[in-house]
């Protein structure tokens, strides 16, 4: 494995980790506010469909992104309605959203474009093009640092850079602002927040809405940056891997980034080498695919520190009995 190969694998890691990280941060906001969300997958999927469809029709990828985020927020609002206002079971509501999105995307896309649940291929301004960072060409020949800058850091779409900036942003919002403090409190002890005169319902809806926006960006990234159009079921379980990454990171923003990068790296290696030959023995590709889940189970089982979910997670808030 030479240096250039490592750079290429890391480059692939960044591309694969970006949708995971967006979905993971989305889940972070929702779950820290006490709303479990296994509907990340469905929200990404519907955003992928609408962003591709609107980007194709209008020719503007930014309008596509907006439409994707709006559709995802609509599903998030549904989840909020079911689990906050009507105090339903959050897991069931999430599962329902996944089913709803899986079916609806294909039906709408088929009715709209008659391409069998696909959207037409996007080109030109309807796609996010890679951004070449300044001087990338010039420094490409510098040994070691050159390829790192030109190959690894440069040449991604703008959403990738935004995503990685969102990590410190999230950290700051959650740990350094009044809103963040209240958000965390509402996930641990909503009664205390209520006593302080702050609306539990309002905070939780805000968290769910942020979750919707981030899932929307994740879906738009899949359909308009990584790909050039929507294909049925194109999220392929990424929402669930993001959820696993969130647990693996013990519901904290910086570790969330590292766990998403780790899961992305595992995928990138699995895609590059069908069977990873370690000299002593060969690791089959299936082992690599299952590793994110195995790691999550290990963390959950408490072998490596303890993963404690927000205490009020999954429990609807009842003000008075």
């Amino acid at each position: 494995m030479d240096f250039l190969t490592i750079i290429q694998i890391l480059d692939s890691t960044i591309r694969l980790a970006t949708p995971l990280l967006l979905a993971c941060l989305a889940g972070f906001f929702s779950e820290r506010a006490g709303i479990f969300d296994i509907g990340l997958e469905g929200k990404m999927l519907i955003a992928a469909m609408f962003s591709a469809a609107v980007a194709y029709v209008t020719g503007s990828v930014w309008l596509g992104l907006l439409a994707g985020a709006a559709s995802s927020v609509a599903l998030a609002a549904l989840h909020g309605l079911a689990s906050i206002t009507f105090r339903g079971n959050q897991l069931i509501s999430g599962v329902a959203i996944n089913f709803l999105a899986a079916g609806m995307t294909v039906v709408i896309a088929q009715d709209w474009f008659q391409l069998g649940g696909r959207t037409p291929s996007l080109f030109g301004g309807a796609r996010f093009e890679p951004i070449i960072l300044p001087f990338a060409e010039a420094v490409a020949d510098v040994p070691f640092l050159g390829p790192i800058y030109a190959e690894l850091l440069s040449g991604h779409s703008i959403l990738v850079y935004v995503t990685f900036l969102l990590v410190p942003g999230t950290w700051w919002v959650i740990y350094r602002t009044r809103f963040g403090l209240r958000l965390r409190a509402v996930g641990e002890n909503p009664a205390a927040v209520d006593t302080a005169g702050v609306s539990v319902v309002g905070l939780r809806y805000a968290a769910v809405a942020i979750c919707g926006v981030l899932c929307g960006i994740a879906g738009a990234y899949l359909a308009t940056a990584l790909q050039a159009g929507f294909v049925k079921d194109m999220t392929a379980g990424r929402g669930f891997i993001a959820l696993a990454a969130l647990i693996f990171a013990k519901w904290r923003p910086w570790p969330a980034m590292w766990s998403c990068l780790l899961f992305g790296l595992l995928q990138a290696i699995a895609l590059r080498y069908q069977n990873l030959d370690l000299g002593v023995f060969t690791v089959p590709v299936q082992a690599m695919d299952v590793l994110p889940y195995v790691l999550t189970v290990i963390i959950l089982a408490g072998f490596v520190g303890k993963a404690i979910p927000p205490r009020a997670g999954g429990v609807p808030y009842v003000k008075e009995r």
Partner: protein
Amino acid sequence: MTLMKTFLGAAAAMAVTAGAALADPAIIFDLGGKFDKSFNEAAFNGAKRWADETGGSFREIELQSEAQREQALRRFAEAGSNPVITMGFAMADPLSAVAADYPDTKFVAVDVTWLDAPNVRQIGFAEHEGSYLVGMLAAMASKSGTVGFIGGMDIPLIRHFGCGYAQGAKAVNPDVKIVANMTGTTPAAWNDPVKGSELTKAQMSQGADVVYAAAGGTGVGVLQTAADEGILSIGVDSNQNHLHPGKVLTSMLKRVDVAVYDAMKAGENVETGVFTLGLAEEGVGYALDENNAELITDEMKAAVDAAREKIIGGEIEVEAYYTNDSCSALDF
């Protein structure tokens, strides 16, 4: 009373016609879905052509999970559909369990050739022969001497494709390097274009400049990335040349549409037994149309057509992966 009789008679007549209408053919699409731009869509196109030409109608279902296979077969057989057409190798086990229970129903199994059932028409395709031809084209079009193969789910059938492809490429250029990857080991591998894109990029960085995708919906991502990055790709099953005109070298055609069309046309009297459609029967081949006319030179076409004749004549024997579950031309 006479009036009553008339009514009863009319009702009986209607029941009879309803029964006749139920003898419509039925088709069970595999997990990829009927609009996968590939295998299942070819079957759907064949069925639609039959319906358009004859004015008949057919029943259909898109499977969503493994558990539905046997259920769907029984439902159609109970409802009197005849013949019941199934898509994909995975229907073999449910078929062997169900077929004997409905001796009067004819089943047509596409991609299954090994069952011992008297009322099943089993249709196999010589995918390795078609893949051999596109492998030759790939090796001739490649400037780097490296060609890629991206499979969907890792199953023997897909290895069969890859094996024929590798043999064809090596027939043109014995030193050709073949990079082969599978997308995954679960049915999700048929619909993951993002992984298809990443695999294409990974193969490009290993030098591949022609990539053959035998991966259902995942192939959409492969073809897209190949077109974006300026290398050539090869489609599969249906003619996919039009997806990126001038950037898809060719498509390996598997005439599932013809097989389905013929079965529906024969209706209840469809001939049972095992049939393999190869180059000679035009069951497989490569696509040449206005979208890739500039990519295939006369020289390439002549070489491939000559090989085609030789395979039909038996001078070239393309090794099938199934023979001993391994491939001498390609290591998976």
